[in-house]
């Protein structure tokens, strides 16, 4: 025994003369650290209700609920997360994975109550003491659970692309497709945005799991033009993809294309296994475009006898004549149409209603009629001289190219307009070896064309002249040429509305081109409709008014496609076709 062992313990008393450890102030509610994972805060303005938080929560602590302050809209389900603080473990995975960054945490942590059912709240909606807290856990900017970067897809270089009409986009390789599909968080927000309400997360999952047969079945559930849409769809879904808040949206379109590319056309029948039981009814469809053929497919699947009347020599409508083959090769379009035809749909080509057959005849022999003639008449620029022979319509140019004819645009071309047709026309002209100038009234962000198309057009050295309003078209010195007068425009916003281009009279320019391609829009031609029917069908801004299932005021007649919807793209037409099929089925069977 050492004496030191008896004396040194008394050293404890030294502590009595020091300041106590006890934290006397503040005793309660000491503020948590700045990055403390306390109670949740949700910015419901930002929240799109994607439900990823609910999915990742391992404790089932999150419910997605409807709230009064928010409605569903495209790209926003209108739901917000409600937390059960009888479950939450404050791991903050929900914050890490939050696609919009709306969810974060405060550094508050005190909540005591006697009612066990009271520990539920909807952050951002329910009044809480911590909702304005500045501190608390946030996802570190360099730390991502979401996959924000798209794999680079192989594309023809602009120079290469210009040399031929070969497809520009190579499509994903297997690895790329799986990696890209893996990015999907399956929030299902995009389903509402897709006009056809395709099961996008479903077929992306199929890609991820490399189950392409299942993927194809899912595609054909809602869209019989999958090969086509996989190439040229306007992919509104990608605009609303929740990943796009912080990163690149999912390449939904390319994944769809990837599925169809994996399955050879011969195996479609075997995989889709569409068994048809005839039900004895007959439906006539006017127009073999995407809308018409889609309706034909779904009606046929339900057992209807279907006859499609097409004025052109082959099916596909605008997809064939309006979309150049470097975006949509003909064989791909044929793949889709051939499958539909193979189910027993009768297509009468070169048959124009009102010319080869009277509309009334269809009315008499069919149980229902679906009209999807599309808009094939170019709109007028409403300026003087637009009937000049060197002023061509964009559609005509594309049509000629599609039918392997030379449109004769010359070496120096002006394209007027900013839509997809304008872009296509410009790029076709580039492939024909012309220098292209695109004149557009507004800014590049206002262009209705696809972002990809604009980008590719720019890459292919199309010269964009923006905020340019054509004023006058005149003869040029040479008869092979034409002169256009245009003025610069200023974007002027009037009382909060969308800015409008206003012509600046003092800044006028005059240019001379070999030809001018006008591509500022199209309209439909409904002259085949008998007057009494035409009177009954309501029109609005050149479009027919229809309901959710494409029904019109005339019971038997259903209308869809570009002539009925506002967006006028392929996928909307396909969706219209499908919904018309449902509507017709309901109508006929009632």
């Amino acid at each position, binding site marked *: 025994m050492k004496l030191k062992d008896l004396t040194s313990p008394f050293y404890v008393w030294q502590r009595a003369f020091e300041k106590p450890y006890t934290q006397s102030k503040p*005793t309660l*509610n*000491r503020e948590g650290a700045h990055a403390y994972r306390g109670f949740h805060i949700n910015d419901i303005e930002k929240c799109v209700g994607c439900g990823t938080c609910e999915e990742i929560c391992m*404790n*089932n602590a999150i419910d997605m609920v409807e709230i009064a302050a928010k409605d569903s809209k495209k790209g926003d389900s209108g739901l917000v997360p409600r937390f059960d*603080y009888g*479950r939450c473990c404050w791991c903050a995975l929900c914050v890490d994975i939050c696609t919009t960054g709306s969810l974060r945490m405060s550094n508050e942590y005190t909540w005591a109550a006697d009612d*066990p059912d009271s520990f539920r709240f909807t952050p951002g909606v329910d009044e809480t003491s911590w909702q304005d807290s500045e501190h608390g856990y946030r996802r570190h900017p360099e730390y991502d659970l979401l996959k924000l970067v798209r794999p680079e897809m192989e594309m023809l270089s602009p120079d290469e692309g210009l040399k031929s009409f070969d497809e520009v986009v190579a499509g994903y390789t297997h690895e790329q497709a799986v990696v890209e599909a893996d990015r999907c968080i399956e929030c299902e927000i995009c389903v509402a945005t897709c006009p056809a309400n395709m099961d996008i997360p479903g077929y992306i999952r199929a890609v991820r799991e490399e189950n392409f047969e299942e993927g194809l079945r899912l595609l054909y559930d809602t869209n019989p033009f999958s090969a086509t849409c996989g190439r040229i769809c306007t992919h509104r879904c990608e605009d609303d993809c929740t990943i796009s808040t912080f990163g690149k949206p999912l390449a939904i379109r390319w994944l769809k294309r990837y599925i169809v590319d994996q399955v050879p056309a011969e195996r479609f029948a075997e995989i889709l296994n569409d068994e048809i039981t005839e039900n004895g009814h007959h439906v006539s469809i006017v127009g073999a475009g995407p809308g018409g053929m889609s309706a034909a497919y779904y009606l046929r699947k339900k057992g209807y006898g279907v006859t499609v009347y097409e004025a052109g020599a082959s099916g596909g409508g605008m997809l064939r004549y309006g979309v150049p083959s470097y975006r949509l090769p003909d064989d791909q379009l044929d793949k889709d149409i051939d499958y539909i035809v193979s189910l027993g749909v009768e297509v009468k080509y070169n048959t124009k209603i009102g010319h080869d057959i009277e509309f009334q005849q269809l009315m008499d022999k069919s149980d229902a009629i679906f009209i999807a003639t599309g808009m094939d008449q170019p709109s007028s620029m409403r300026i003087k001289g637009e009937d000049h022979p060197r002023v061509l319509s964009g559609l005509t140019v594309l049509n000629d190219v599609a039918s392997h004819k030379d449109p004769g645009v010359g070496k120096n071309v002006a394209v007027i307009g900013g839509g997809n047709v304008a872009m296509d026309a410009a790029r076709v002209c580039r492939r024909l070896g012309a220098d292209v100038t695109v004149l557009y009234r507004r800014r590049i962000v206002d262009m209705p064309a696809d972002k990809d198309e604009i980008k590719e057009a720019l890459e292919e050295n199309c010269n964009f002249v923006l905020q340019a309003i054509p004023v006058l078209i005149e003869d040029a010195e040479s008869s092979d040429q034409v002169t256009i007068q245009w003025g610069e425009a200023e974007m002027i916003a009037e009382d909060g509305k969308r800015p409008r281009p206003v012509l600046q009279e003092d800044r006028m320019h005059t240019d001379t081109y070999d030809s001018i391609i006008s591509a500022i829009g199209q309209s439909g031609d409904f002259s085949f409709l008998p007057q009494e029917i035409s009177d009954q069908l309501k029109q609005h801004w050149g479009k027919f008014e229809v309901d959710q299932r494409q029904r019109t005021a005339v019971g038997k007649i259903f209308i869809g496609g570009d002539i009925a919807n506002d967006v006028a793209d392929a996928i909307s037409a396909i969706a219209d076709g499908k919904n018309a099929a449902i509507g017709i089925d309901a109508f006929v069977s009632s």
Partner: protein
Amino acid sequence: MNKQDKNPGNNRENLIKLENAGLTAEEQQLFCDAVPVPYEPYSLEFVERFHNWIRANSLWVLAFGTGCGAIELNPLMTSRFDANRFGVMMRPTPRQASVLIVAGYSSVKTLKRIIRSYEQMQGPKFVIGLGICTINGGMYYDSYNTINCLDRYIPVDLYITGCMPRPEALLAGFMELKRKIKAGECDGANRYVKDFDWYKANQKKVIKKWDMPDYNW
């Protein structure tokens, strides 16, 4: 609180029969079925109020670390947060304790001990459910061995959410408990007597090895 509505079987016949049920009356007495005695508040109101004030300021906590929440009781009771200065003290024996802290999840095996401890405590007694697991199962909502809602097995006077609740949150919880006791709102022990059969039925539903002596003398 319409507790009656929540009680599916508030008569003695509906009690779940267990393996011990077939024993002779003498042996059966060994197993807890006797209804505890309810207690009356003092007949004079100001006396009761005075006592409530005293009870609130002298909380004796049973030192039973039932789950992971016990880890935050250590700082609470020691120098940094020093709950002693608020009259909160640890008692190692249930007979003397007035507050039972169910610290987080309770496994079925522990629940049995919790009930046993609770029944040995003398009224008025208070129960604090600590952490999410006592409220709605928390982390272990799908575990085969942990209960989800504590208030089905013993009456709970206060819940503190968190995983784990920090010592400060615990202190705030104690302040809230004090407020409730002073206001005379904590009648958990009498609720337990009143709905004894309901509680027992729930307990017997999860605790299958029911060799619980009667501790309600």
